[in-house]
């Protein structure tokens, strides 16, 4: 897994040093993973950082993207195109054969579904890079405010990949669909004067733990993840809402069109249409409730806080609170948007309620966990 870890800008473990020229992100990630790591002893914090940083010289600041607008265009939804073509084919067959039945029964669903898919696709996002920082979606982020760059583990080995710009209040995603090369953009961002990580204030119950860990390992090896300012909505809710609306349109069409177009007042399709309409209204109500009641994976998620250190972690999440040593952890896995820590007789599930991506937090935890197991 560590083969794919690649990051820059953060100031821990000395891997913040820039990628050497001629090394791809994947190769550089491999270099990082291959580097022997040990937990520093008390009294010698930061020893690793000095050695690792000295081995690499930083690149000069790149200017390639200054004043340029990078566009992540809305994706073409091929399923929508195919469905629309199918609807057109049925329509054509109807016109050729002078038979309106295909128009009434076969066109509504693919046509409505194509429209739903088209409407629910992600829109175009524009990023403007200046000498000072990045502007996107009404947000201006100075380079000094970017505390790190993060490329997810599942980034493709070839082609473009998503890059997360980690900042104090959260993270900004530059999707893989951008027109220029993600690699070039990554190198450009990596060469900018990015900010240094500062530990955010922590909950009072963590004060002693944090103080102790800072004395043991130094500030650079401690990672504090406070709660996100807001949680994203349910995944695919937009798609499902559009799908249900398409189903509703289909149901109404099947109910009304037979009598309007064919003059058939006792069509079986009308019965099917009524059933489909009722089902669609039911699911539409569920979608509406899901939209208006925000996603809450844990109680009091706003209180959540996670501290990751070379010797273990401390966590507040919902009604779980306490500290855990890496020796107690039997397995550490990432599954379905969560991180699972298996301990004897139980498992601790970390939800995506923190300010930075859970994949990034997982990488941090895995590094220390594997080091502690060696």
């Amino acid at each position, binding site marked *: 897994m560590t083969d794919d870890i690649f990051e820059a800008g953060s100031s821990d473990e000395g891997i913040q040093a820039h990628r050497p020229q001629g090394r791809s992100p994947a190769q550089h990630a491999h270099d990082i993973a291959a580097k022997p790591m040990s937990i520093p002893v008390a009294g010698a914090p930061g020893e690793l950082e000095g050695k690792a940083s000295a081995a690499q010289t930083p690149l000069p600041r790149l200017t390639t993207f200054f004043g340029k607008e990078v566009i992540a265009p809305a994706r073409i939804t091929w399923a929508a195109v195919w469905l629309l073509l199918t609807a057109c084919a049925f329509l054509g067959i109807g016109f050729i054969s002078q038979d309106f039945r295909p128009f009434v029964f076969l066109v509504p669903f693919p046509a409505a579904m194509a429209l739903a898919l088209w409407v629910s696709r992600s829109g175009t996002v524009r990023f403007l890079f200046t000498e000072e920082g990045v502007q996107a979606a009404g947000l201006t982020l100075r380079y000094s405010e970017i505390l790190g760059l993060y490329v997810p583990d599942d980034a493709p080995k070839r082609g473009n990949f998503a890059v997360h710009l980690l900042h104090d209040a959260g993270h900004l995603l530059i999707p893989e669909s951008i027109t220029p090369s993600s690699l070039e953009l990554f190198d450009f961002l990596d060469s900018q004067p990015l900010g240094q990580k500062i530990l955010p204030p922590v909950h009072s119950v963590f004060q002693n733990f944090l103080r102790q860990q800072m004395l043991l390992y130094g500030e650079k090896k401690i990672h504090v993840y406070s709660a996100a300012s807001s949680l994203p909505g349910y995944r695919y809710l937009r798609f499902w809402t559009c799908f249900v609306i398409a189903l509703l349109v289909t149901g109404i069409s099947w109910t009304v069109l037979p009598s309007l177009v064919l003059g058939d007042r006792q069509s079986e399709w009308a019965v099917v249409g009524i059933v489909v309409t009722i089902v669609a209204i039911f699911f539409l109500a569920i979608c509406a409730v899901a939209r208006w009641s925000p996603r809450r994976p844990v109680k009091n998620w706003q209180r959540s806080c996670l501290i990751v250190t070379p010797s273990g972690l401390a966590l507040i999440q919902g009604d*779980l609170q306490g500290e855990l040593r890496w020796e107690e952890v039997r397995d550490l896995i990432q599954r379905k948007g969560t991180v699972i820590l298996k301990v004897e007789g*139980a498992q601790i599930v970390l939800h995506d309620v923190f300010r930075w991506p859970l994949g990034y937090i997982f990488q941090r935890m895995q590094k220390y966990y594997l080091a502690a197991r060696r």
Partner: protein
Amino acid sequence: MGLDDVNNEPKLKSLAQAARGKELNTARYILFGVGILSLVVNIGLFFFFQSQIEDARKRGDVLDPQAIAMFKIIVGVSVAISVSYIIFGFLVKTFPVPVTIIALVLYVGDWLVGIALNPATAHQGIIIKIAIVIAMFKAVQAAFAYQKELQRERDDFAPDTPHD
């Protein structure tokens, strides 16, 4: 402030133990749920059959006293088991290991006896029953680890044994 001073400050509680406690809480909710539900069903059944027996007597039907006694025993045992689940729910954090093991054995035993008495009911609610057994099995695992950690904490805080 030195490392020794910080080490002497109160520590955070164990997160692993909190997670095990959560598993035991899940077991508690399951025990309460199963106990209350089966108690309601069994009491309902008892009163339903009691009224059926009364009606039959009024009609002058001949009833088998052994069958009636058997029915009352079965309902009585079922009610006792239901009450036991509720009591186990209260005691699961105090005596985690014995309570979770007895509850699991009792639940599986009750299920098997039910199948033996009436094989036609074997498939009824099988998915829910399997889910409950899995959850209770996990609770037994959590209980063992919870108990071990409690014992370790007690040993850590116990005063040294005086030497002769």
